[in-house]
């Protein structure tokens, strides 16, 4: 089995490439941890995951086994092949210092956030910038929408050891922020590590 097997602590970004045909597994090691994730075509990063194209094509907002993640150009990037959590969010986006000032208090600007993790990872990568941050997936996060059009942050559906596994359909650059949010239940107020694994399939 050729690939990666890494533990990513809470509040850290992770970047890596999953080749076409390889699997990527993300494990929620301690439970109720939001994993903010973006996918790019590794050969042309102007093509990336599109939340709107993905939910439009499958006709539903939650992601789970069988969901094909579509790009902004309408191409298939990855397919979710296993999911022991049940559903994942693609509407809630990433927390940022600036949105924290709106959502919680102006004084919360200095708290660590997913977008800061994304920006630091992109700055070190060198080619991508804030311009390349579209709306992301939140694996293991539960953001139900009601029939009357309200959005809730409920959470509590993931648990220790649950995982989501994706099969890459093209060479894919993966950008993860293991969420440091302390102000809402998306991480059960206690951000914890995740495990990221990739491997070749026979």
């Amino acid at each position: 089995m050729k690939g990666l097997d890494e533990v990513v602590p809470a509040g850290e970004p992770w970047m890596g490439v999953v080749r076409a045909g390889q699997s990527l597994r993300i494990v929620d090691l301690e439970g109720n941890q939001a994993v903010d994730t973006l996918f790019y075509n590794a050969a042309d990063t102007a093509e990336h995951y599109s939340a709107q194209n993905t939910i439009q094509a499958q006709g539903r907002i939650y992601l789970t086994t069988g969901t094909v993640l579509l790009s902004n150009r309408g191409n298939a990037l990855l397919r979710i092949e296993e999911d022991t959590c049940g559903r994942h969010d693609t509407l809630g986006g990433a927390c940022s210092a600036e949105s924290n000032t709106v959502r919680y208090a102006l004084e919360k600007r200095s708290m660590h956030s997913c977008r800061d993790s994304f920006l630091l990872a992109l700055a070190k990568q060198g080619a991508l910038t804030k311009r390349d941050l579209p709306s992301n997936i939140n694996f293991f996060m539960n953001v139900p929408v009601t029939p009357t059009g309200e959005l809730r942050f409920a959470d509590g559906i993931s648990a220790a050891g649950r995982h989501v596994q994706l099969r890459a359909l093209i060479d894919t650059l993966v950008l993860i922020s293991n969420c440091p949010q302390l102000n809402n239940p998306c991480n059960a107020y206690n951000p914890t590590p995740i495990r990221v694994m990739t491997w070749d399939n026979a």
Partner: protein
Amino acid sequence: MIWEEEIPGGAHWSGVLRRGVVLRLIAGGDDANVSALFFSREQPLERYNMADTLKAQHIAHLTTGCVCYSDMGRILCSITADTCGWHDPLCGLTDAAQISSRYGATRFQEQRNQRFVSGRDAMLVELGKHGLNERDLVANINFFSKVAVDEAGALRLTTGHAKAGQYVDLRFEMDTIVALHAGPHPLATGTKYAPPAIRLQARRGSPPAADDPCRVRCPENARGYINTERMYSS
């Protein structure tokens, strides 16, 4: 009234709306749809953010009292009036493959300006006029379309939601590049490409008062206005 203009059905438009101006979008027919994107005129890297708009206000639809957030914690525009009642922030744009498979393939060579333009192509053209490209084509709003989400997460477009003459008023809180496409909603089921026109009317508005309905809708919006006012007062 400062100016008035009509976007023919299927056509696209962009322009700059200054802080303090109210743009009225008027449905030119039943089942109208107009896709919209907003960028800061001063720094277009600051742009409408679907997720921040939804989670700050705990909403999955837009109507009077809601505001459209940028990704920098500021308010690009506020919905100060709405006779339609529900606008879709979830479903995105059509692309060329969808348009030709649903409505038939068209080319300018044969159909001239009656050709069927996709939402994505329309936005790429308008964004290009402002130095922006597909990296800037973020999640958009579809005004006049209602898409409800059931308990299982399934999306359903309400046919017959928008009626001719209904309008929505956007009061701009920042100098904003606005890109619009009067095209069909991506979940529309008809087989005839006949999107209604959208009429635009720009008027001078009054600054949001202390008791402005958008400001007092939730504490989050009060803070969003503070962030926006700080930038314009410094």
